């Protein structure tokens, strides 16, 4: 499955994985589920669920102030 992964504030990646979960997609772009939220249509999706969208948005959890 081909998925466009838009890491906001950084880079957009194209990944091609067989039946990926959202966690698989994150690993493919070298991100940990601990450090980001994966959004589809503006809502977070569980990382262990199979990817159902060809486009996902990834937002870093950042704490600096």
């Amino acid at each position, binding site marked *: 499955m081909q998925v466009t992964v838009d890491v*906001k*504030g*950084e880079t957009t990646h194209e990944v091609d994985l067989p039946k990926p979960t959202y966690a698989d997609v994150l690993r493919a772009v070298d991100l*940990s589920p*601990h*450090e980001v*939220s994966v*959004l589809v*249509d*503006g*809502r*977070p999706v569980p990382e262990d669920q199979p990817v159902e969208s060809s486009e996902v*948005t990834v*937002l*870093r*959890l*950042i*704490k*600096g*102030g």
Partner: protein
Amino acid sequence: MTDLSLSPTQLDRYSRHVIMDEVGPDGQANLLDASVCCVGAGGLGSPVLAYLAAAGVGRVGIVDDDTVERSNLQRQVVHGDADVGRPKVDSAAEFVTGLNPDVTVDRHELRLDADTVTDLVADYDLVVDGSDNFPTRYVVNDACVIDGTPFVHGAIYRFEGQATTYLPGGPCYRCVFPEAPEPGTVPDCATTGVLGVLPGVVGGIMATEAVKHFVPVGDPLDDRMLVYDAADMTTDEVPVAKNPDCPVCGDQPTVRSLDDVSYSGTCAVE
């Protein structure tokens, strides 16, 4: 352009606001009547406090339990070299009153937690969160949602910043980030560094949201998160939708009191 609610000195000080059709004397009077709690007097809190003070926000609360370190001064512009070692609430309060004597400053030298946040939030019209840790971010979110207090969120990381605004009835921080990362998995500014001017831009956006809220004017960031990349000098927006399953603001919230959440670890709602 004259208005009896503004003194001649205030009409002079705020003249560039007063002559704007979108602000005018009424908008300026709204700012003078407003109260804002600024959580954190660090990188983001510094520009927030400076611009809220300059804008004439009538009462400003400053919350911080930290003291000024020399390594802060590369970005935390309300503190000076002579303030190293002093409580940040003191040097920040002096900056605010020095800039604008119209502003009443409340100093809160403490770290917000479930025991202290509720009364504090209820005492202000709006909260601006420029804190530097996840427990504070989640406790501020949950307290504001439960109390119905709007808040502006901002965060920074190396060259990247995020900002969004919560308004009662809209999506909250937990709608985007349901829980915090495990402690130690996300680096802080001390570990990765941060471009010194970055909080100036992001904090300026946060202050803009606060000022717009009170005037009122414009469109808030209440259903979107603004992402700023200083390296590429680009901005992006992420639509943010209310999560019906959100434990704090969803259709059937399970968090009705801060006692329902442990604000340590991932701040998760079990």
